[in-house]
C-alpha cells in the first residue's frame, strides 16, 4: 500500500521569530527554514511502516509540499530520509489549511494512498487543522495526535494524546493520521542518502493544475509582538523565596 506524507516548510523551530516593523507578519528573509518538526515525525513513521515496523504492507511513500519553489528543499529532505518520490505544488499566494486540504484531496484521488500521515500542527501558524479537514473532505477516519500507530490490512489503530491522557481508536482504511511528539524520533539523513535523494523523482505542479480555488478566506490585518513581561528579581536563597511567597499569600 501507498502512504502520502504532506510536509511544510516553516521557520526553523530554533529561530526566535521576529515581527516585521510594518506589522505585516513575521520576518522570513534570511532566516533558517526547515521541515515542520511534526512532519519529520510523519515521514519517519511512514518509513518505519515501509520497513515493516508497526505493521506491514507499505510499499511506497510519496511526499507532497505546497508552497513556494523552495519547498522542494523540504521534499528533498524527506526523500533523503527515505521517502520514494515527491510532488511540489507551487503557489505564489500563501495557501490556507482549507486550500491545502483541497489540493491534497485531489492528489489523494490521483494517487489512491491507503494512509495519509500529516503533522498535527504547523509551528508557524499553529492552526492544527489540515489533517482533520482532509479527512472531512474525503469522508475518511482521522487518527489525530498519534503517539502510536499499528497498521493492519484494512484498519489502522491509533493511540492518541488527549487532554486527560491517552485514547486508542481504530479507523477503517483508507484513513488519516496526524502525528504528535512522542510517536517516534526522526532519523537524520546520511550523506549517501542525501546524494541518492537528488535523483529521486520530483514532479512540479501548480494549484491551478488541480482546479482548486485557493483564494484565502482569512485576511491578516496586522501582526504585532505580544506584551513583554517586565524583568523580575532574583532572590538570594530559599528563605527569601518563602518570604516572597508569604507576601503573595500563597504560603503561611
Amino acid at each position, binding site marked *: 500500500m501507498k502512504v502520502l506524507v504532506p510536509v511544510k516548510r516553516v*521557520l526553523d*523551530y530554533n529561530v526566535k*521569530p521576529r*515581527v516585521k516593523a510594518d506589522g505585516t507578519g*513575521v520576518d522570513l528573509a534570511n532566516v533558517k527554514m526547515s521541515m515542520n518538526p*511534526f512532519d519529520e515525525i510523519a515521514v519517519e513513521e511512514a518509513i518505519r511502516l515501509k520497513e515493516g515496523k508497526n505493521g506491514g504492507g507499505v510499499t511506497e511513500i510519496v511526499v507532497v509540499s505546497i508552497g513556494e519553489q523552495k519547498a522542494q528543499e523540504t521534499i528533498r529532505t524527506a526523500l533523503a530520509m527515505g521517502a520514494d518520490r515527491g510532488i511540489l505544488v507551487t503557489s505564489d499566494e500563501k495557501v490556507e489549511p*482549507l486550500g491545502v486540504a483541497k489540493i491534497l484531496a485531489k492528489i489523494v484521488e490521483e494517487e489512491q494512498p491507503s494512509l495519509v500521515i500529516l503533522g498535527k*500542527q504547523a*509551528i*508557524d501558524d*499553529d*492552526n*492544527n*487543522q*489540515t489533517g*482533520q*479537514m482532509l*479527512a*472531512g473532505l474525503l*469522508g475518511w*477516519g*482521522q487518527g489525530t495526535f498519534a*503517539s502510536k500507530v499499528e497498521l493492519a490490512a484494512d484498519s489502522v489503530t491509533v493511540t*492518541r*494524546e*488527549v*487532554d*486527560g*491522557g*491517552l*485514547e*486508542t*481508536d481504530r*479507523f*477503517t482504511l483508507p484513513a488519516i493520521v496526524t502525528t*504528535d*511528539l*512522542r510517536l517516534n524520533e526522526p532519523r537524520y539523513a546520511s550523506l549517501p542518502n542525501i546524494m541518492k535523494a537528488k535523483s529521486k523523482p520530483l514532479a512540479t505542479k501548480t494549484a491551478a493544475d488541480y482546479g482548486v480555488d485557493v483564494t*484565502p*478566506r*482569512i*485576511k*491578516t*490585518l*496586522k*501582526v*504585532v*509582538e*505580544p506584551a513583554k*513581561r517586565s524583568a*523580575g*528579581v*532574583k532572590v538570594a*536563597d*530559599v528563605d527569601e*523565596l*518563602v518570604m*516572597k511567597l508569604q507576601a503573595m499569600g*500563597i*504560603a503561611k
Partner: protein
Amino acid sequence: MKTLVWVEHDGTAVKDATLAAVTAASKLGEVHLLVAGQGVDGVAQAAAKIAGVGKVHVADDAAYAHQIAENVAPLVAQLMGDHDAFVAAATTTAKNLCPRVAALLDVMQISDILSVEGEDTFTRPIYAGNAIATVQTSDAKKVITVRGTAFEKAAAEGGSATIEAVSSTGDKGIATFVDAEIAQNARPELTSAKIIVSGGRALQNGENFHALIEPLADKLGAGVGASRAAVDAGFVPNDYQVGQTGKIVAPEVYIAVGISGAIQHLAGMKDSKTIIAINKDEDAPIFQVADIGLVGDLFKVVPELTEKL
C-alpha cells in the same frame, strides 16, 4: 448572530473550558449549546444552568459516546444550518472535531482566538505566541476555537435554557473507540489550577520527579506540569506537558523547576500572573520571563523549600 457552543464534558459534568467558550460566543450574539454523548441527561441539565444560554441542543446516541469526530461533525454541520458560528474551547476533543466541521461547511477555521474584535475579526497567537495576528474572515459561517485562558468564565449557575433533543445523524462506521487511559488525578486540573509546579529535564528521572515536585505541589495545593523533555523522557505522562503543542495555562503562580525556558515551553505559560523559576544556570532563558528567580541546585533547593513552607 446565533452561535452554537460545543459543551466539553466527561459524561457527567460540564468542563470549565466550556464557560470560557460561552463568554467568547456571547460577544458574537445569541448563545446555544450542543451536548453530544450517550446518557448525557445530567450534562444537559447542568449546561442549561450556564448563565446567558438560550437553548441546549442534546444529541444522545451511542454514535456520540466518545465524541468520535467522524460521527459528531455531520451532526454539527446539520445544526449549523440554523446557526452562524460554531465555537469551542481549544481542548483536544475540539481540536479534533472543529476542522472537520469547517471542511464540511467549506469554511476556514479560526484557531485559538484570544479576543473578539468584531463579528468577523479576531486576534490569535502564531509562531508559539511570539506574534499576535489580527485576522478577518470572509466566510459567512464561522468555526472558531477559543483559548480558554484568554476569556473570563461565564457563570455556571443562574441560567435556565430550554433543552431540545436533536436526532442522531448515525454512526458512519469508520472510527471505533477501543480504550482510554485517562489519568485519575487528585490534584487540580492544569488548565484550571491556581498554582502550578512544573518540572523539567533536570529532574533526571521519574522517581526524582515524584519525590521532589509532587510534595512541593501538595504543600501548595498546586497542579503538576512538565516540559516536553520531562514527558519525552517518561518521567510523567503526556497530559502533563505545558507548551506550544501541549497545554496552555495561566495560573496565579507558575513555578518552573529545572526548566530552561525554550520558546515552545514559554508559549504555554507566559501569561501566568507570577512566574517563579528555580534553575542552576543564572543565564537560563526562563529568568527573562520570571518575576522571581532563584539560582541554585534544585536537588538542594526544592526539599528545603517544601520543608519551610
